[in-house]
């Protein structure tokens, strides 16, 4: 997929990253010399482009936050590489890490926890500016930089907010301060981990629209992590769906949400609340063969990880891992599902249809 785009547009790439977390071993495992791990992320490739929003959609435990932490270099990948402008980076601490963080900033889910309650907005933002060397020279320049930051996130007039403490601000305003702090580093990449799910519903869109506007104006590359596939359709250019640590489907957001190809994406889209389906006892639009639970990530199922729940399961799904296969309706739309394997005869009849 990356070959079709101009090279310069790609800012940050996670290339086939895998992250396993060791789990405590029991006596039996010690004796058998096993080293069990949680397969949090397996072989995931994400590309972030300048001025574009990429959504990472999945249930809790699907590994989407781990991907963000790998991209932020907060944890090293077990295998795979993180590329910034095509250059592999692996920084752990010190100056290189700080230089990396200046270019790749993170926004967290909970603005109530990510701001220190005993410090003012001025302190939070000044600190970000100082650390990243963007404060300018002298108090006048610093004040100007602070005002500029607050104006960017639409907290105007800035004087009203500069000396406010976090508890004096509403949730939406706090998240705007957190965004301003991230912008203080003048980054190229924003990694937003569920940036609006803790906010009141009526102000979520305001924050999303602000992020959209900043993306376009400042040419940021944004990773938007969410469990709400409808908001991915609204906000993101591209969408990547994760299930149980693996990416299962990707493409532009409109195609992925309107013509979901992977049975899991269909289940996800079919399960999302839909006011147009007013019935009361609406059965799930797509049947789920399992009990609605994702599998254990310590011993994930062989083959496709969705096969125990998949309504379209085939014998090979339980043994062979499906690679990324082109769905064929739109360029760049792929699904890791054997339904889209063009080679074997007979197995793909009717697979491309069905909107979920």
């Amino acid at each position, binding site marked *: 997929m990356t070959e079709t785009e101009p090279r310069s547009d790609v800012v940050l790439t996670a290339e086939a990253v895998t992250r396993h977390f060791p789990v405590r071993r029991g006596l039996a495992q010690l004796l058998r010399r096993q080293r069990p791990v949680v397969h949090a992320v397996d072989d995931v490739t994400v590309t972030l482009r300048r001025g574009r929003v990429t959504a990472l959609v999945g249930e809790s435990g699907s590994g989407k936050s781990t991907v963000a932490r790998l991209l932020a270099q907060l944890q090293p990948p077990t295998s795979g590489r993180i590329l910034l402008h095509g250059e592999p980076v692996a920084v752990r601490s010190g100056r290189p890490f700080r230089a990396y963080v200046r270019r790749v900033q993170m926004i967290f889910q909970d603005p109530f926890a990510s701001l220190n309650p005993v410090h003012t907005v001025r302190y939070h933002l000044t600190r970000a500016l100082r650390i990243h060397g963007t404060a300018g020279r002298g108090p006048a320049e610093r004040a100007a930089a602070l005002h500029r930051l607050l104006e960017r996130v639409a907290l105007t007039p800035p004087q009203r907010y500069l000396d406010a403490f976090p508890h004096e601000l509403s949730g939406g305003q706090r998240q705007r301060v957190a965004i301003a702090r991230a912008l203080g580093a003048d980054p190229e990449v924003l990694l937003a981990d569920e940036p609006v799910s803790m906010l009141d519903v009526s102000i979520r869109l305001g924050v999303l629209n602000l992020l959209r506007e900043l993306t376009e104006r400042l040419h940021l590359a944004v990773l938007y992590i969410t469990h709400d596939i409808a908001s991915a359709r609204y906000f993101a250019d591209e969408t990547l769906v994760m299930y149980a640590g693996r990416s299962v489907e990707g493409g532009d957001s409109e195609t992925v949400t309107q013509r979901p190809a992977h049975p899991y994406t269909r289940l996800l889209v079919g399960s999302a609340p*839909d006011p147009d389906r007013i019935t009361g006892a609406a059965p799930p639009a797509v049947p789920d063969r399992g009990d609605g639970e994702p599998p254990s990530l310590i011993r994930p199922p062989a083959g496709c990880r969705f096969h125990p729940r998949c309504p379209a399961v085939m014998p090979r799904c339980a043994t062979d891992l499906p690679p990324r296969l082109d769905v064929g309706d739109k360029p760049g739309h792929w699904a890791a599902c054997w339904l889209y394997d063009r080679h074997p005869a007979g197995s793909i009849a009717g697979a491309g249809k069905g909107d979920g």
Partner: protein
Amino acid sequence: MSSPVLEIRNLCVDYGVGETAVRAVRDVDLTLHRGQVLGLAGESGSGKSTLAYGLTRLLPPPGVVTGGQVIYHPPAGAPVDVLAMTPAQLRRFRWAETAVVFQGAMNSLNPVHRISTQLLDVLKAHRPTSTAVGRRERAQEVLRLVGIPADRLDAYPHQLSGGMRQRVMIAMALLLEPQLVIMDEPTTALDVVMQRQILGELAQLRQRLEFAVLFITHDLSLLVEFSDHIAIMYGGRVVEQAASDRLYQQALHPYTEGLLQSFPALRGPLRTLTGIPGSPPDLRAMPTGCAFHPRCPYALDVCRSRLPPLGRPADSHAGRTVACWLHPTAEPATETRP
């Protein structure tokens, strides 16, 4: 719609007393009919959870119910005011007549006791004459009802997944066949696939067992799909109430309209949505007049000074009420009977 099971009249709930008291619920009138799902939507701080705890008298201090009535209609016998019940009456009323599934219910199970202990405990307390075998059978029966194999009865909570724990909580609520189940954000912590499964099961159970549900959530798009009737709360007051489909097709209150515009649609054309400007009101310093006027795009002069009464709008059908000066009321209605 059949007879009412719960009538809330002019309920007011304060936090604190005296001059520093904050009024979280103001003059709420709601009627819940037998077998109906009434959705209660609103943002954090709108008073929806406070209302639920106030009407079951579960509100912890400094919460105080300062006025109003909560009339419960038992299937047989005379209506009673929940707020005037003695502790002994209240003990009989709770769980047996009204059960609550709390917010974050999956964490409300005691981690050191088996599911069976926790289920049987309820039966032992409320049906002291039942036999041990009978209690166990009943516990297995309700577990099967919510889709959990009966052999998981002796599991500990940590051996169950989040979705199963949530189902156990619903099973516990249904254990004594209550007339009314109050659900406070019952599926917020779950994934959408699990959420749909559980709500689908709940809808089936409700049809079979005919209990009424008061469903509290901030997710209006979910409510539109799963409830019969919806009441929207803002700043402690009910600002609009209507049948779900009518509310979705034609929202009268600007806040409802804004709330419906706050959920990006999964289908249909992509539109730029704006949400609602500003932030929810501070209960300590409520705006004068209509609490929504600082955020309202249609605010009139009268909105700043006078509180709009909740009533049936002159330009609309019966069975819905709204508190907005844009839709003057035909007659001051205190309750609605569709």
